[in-house]
């Protein structure tokens, strides 16, 4: 049973709130960065919120996700606490990784978040192993594996999909096709008709989804998750979406036009579209929507406030931090 049901008001508002939370979270990062409070690298998913929220909403308690370098949305959608995420990004002791990992390594294994990954396609083979162990342990948990369009040209993508397919493991592979891998347009770097079409190589019927349409994302992933849980093996989904911000701070956006960015923002923004749809359908009223936005804004504001107060980790932790001990 999916933990979210965006088709009824409560679930819809929950989904909307989470999308706003993700967006506000990343806007807050931009703010912290501009104020010189944030160091290191991070990658923003603003514009892609519906993929994370729709997909993770289709999971059940006990299911797992593996994420990418652009994983803030995945973590929040899977239930991460923004305060602990901010703390991690600020390099604080209270962060998810005690400040050791930063943006690209936020994980909460206990809660089923097997982690963001700094290596493109690096978590794809891990997702297969997580699914295998669940199978061996007799659990019915499913693994949701996020990756980008650029990742589909890594050998790991190929080996992971083949292995999951021959072993018929419950992995739902969700490609966030935001059109670019850093500066490389997906169609220049990726041969073949589409990412979904690559499913053929593994006997999988790849499915394209509108990644900026929350209900569509939710439904597409929910179907794949149900099938995987029922033992029908892995699925390959391609969510068409778009990244508004540069790849990272060093990006001058020379490889695309402002018009292109503006068009996606104004015509296909996942949050605006979902709000409009809810109002259309009369599922919820403007007040409920304003409340959701407000809730997200406040949650993020409070999270930042708390996180900046957190202490920095002591150097003494390093000695014992490398190896686990029994």
């Amino acid at each position, binding site marked *: 049973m999916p933990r979210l049901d965006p088709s009824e008001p409560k679930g819809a508002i929950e989904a909307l709130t989470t999308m706003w939370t993700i967006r506000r979270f990343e806007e807050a990062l931009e703010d912290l960065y501009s104020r010189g409070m944030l160091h290191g690298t991070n990658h923003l998913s603003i514009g892609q919120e519906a993929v994370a929220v729709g997909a993770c909403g289709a999971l059940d308690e006990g299911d797992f996700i593996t994420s990418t370098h652009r994983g803030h949305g995945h973590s929040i959608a899977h239930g991460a606490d923004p305060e602990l995420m901010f703390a991690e990004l600020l390099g604080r002791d209270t962060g998810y*990784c005690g400040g050791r990992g930063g943006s690209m390594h936020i994980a909460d*294994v206990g809660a089923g978040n097997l982690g963001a990954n700094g290596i493109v396609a690096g978590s794809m*083979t891990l997702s297969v192993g*997580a699914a*295998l*162990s669940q199978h*061996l342990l007799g659990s019915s948990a499913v693994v949701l594996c996020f990756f980008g369009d650029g990742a589909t040209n890594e050998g790991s993508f190929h*080996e992971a999909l083949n292995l999951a397919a021959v072993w018929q493991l419950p992995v739902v592979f969700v490609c966030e096709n935001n059109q670019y891998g850093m500066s490389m347009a997906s169609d220049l770097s990726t041969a073949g008709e589409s990412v979904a079409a690559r499913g053929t190589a593994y006997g999988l019927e790849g499915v394209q989804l509108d990644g900026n349409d929350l209900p569509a994302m939710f439904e597409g992933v929910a179907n794949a998750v149900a099938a995987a849980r029922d033992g029908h093996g892995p699925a390959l989904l391609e969510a068409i979406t778009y990244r508004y911000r540069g790849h990272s701070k060093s990006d001058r956006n020379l490889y695309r036009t402002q018009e292109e960015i503006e068009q996606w923002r104004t015509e296909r923004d996942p949050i605006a579209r979902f709000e409009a749809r809810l109002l259309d359908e009369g599922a919820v009223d403007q007040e409920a929507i304003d409340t959701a936005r407000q809730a997200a804004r406040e949650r993020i504001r409070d999270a930042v406030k708390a996180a900046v107060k957190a202490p920095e980790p002591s150097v003494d932790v390093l000695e014992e931090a490398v190896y*686990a001990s029994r």
Partner: protein
Amino acid sequence: MPAADTTDRIEGPVSTEVQTTTYAKAIAAAIRTAMQDDERVFMAGEDIGIYGGAFGVTDGLLEEFGEQRIRDTPISEDAIVGMAVGAAITGTRPIVEMQFSDFVVNAMDPLVNQAAKLHFMYGGNVEVPMVLRLPGGAGTGAAAQHSQSLEAWFAHVPGLKVVAPSTVQDAHDLLFAALLDPNPVVVVEHKLLYKREGELVARATPGDSPATIGDAVVLREGTDLTVASYSLNTHKALEAAEQLAAEGTEVEVVDLRTLRPLDTETVIDSVSRTGKLLVTHEAPAAVGIGAEVVAAVAGSRAFDHLLAPIVRVCGRENPIPYAPGLEEATIPQTEDLVEAMRALAAEDV
């Protein structure tokens, strides 16, 4: 529980009486015992099932444990090791057999960027209890892409542990230690050791293994010079030491056994007594394990006891050639060790 038998294969768990068996069978016995002891342990690798593994180590395991736990894989080293990492962090205990150590080049990301770093990067919130077995080494005419000894790479990576047993008993016991360790452990196995016979007390359960990762052992005591080695070369060192004993030179042989973390104390103690050190392994000398052993000693209290320059007898700085004569010339032979030990012993003080 079936008692120890004298058949071709060792069935685990077994009684604790001493028996003579091969290095390969001692590993197989450990795997069998571990799998009987812990449902979470499984194996994955290329041709480890019906084929029994390229070197026969897993022969018979498929029949005993079935294909759910003895998993033949596609030829996808990256996915095999990455899968193992994912399985290890979610409750199971994978043992991966890399068919030849040389193929680990295809799995360096999951091993080095994932397995070695997750526990640290995630702030200690995850453990990666996996074992990666690497059959390596030259001497079989398999040429440059099937004969390498790459352990130096792994010993350079914080987060990994590396063991390289030389004896039948250690091959058995250290595999248990590796399996019980909550960290990724690379097991370096030299192909030429598999058929080598030795005494084994097969453990009834993994917990019965007395072996600890990180402890070297003095296999032969001596007063004139110290030789440090591991894996196959430990045997060459012992043979050479035997010859020197006949000449009246007493060589102390330290078997490192673990390459990360390295037990430098045992070497330093020995050198502090003998004043002379020779390190030998099959991998090329340059930036090899031997360099670390020398550096550890040269930076230690043993420095004041050193009576002569430290000697390394390692593989030549060339890829492993195919022709028998060239291959033999590339890797250190017992005779090379005898000569080097003689020369070092003769260094007047």
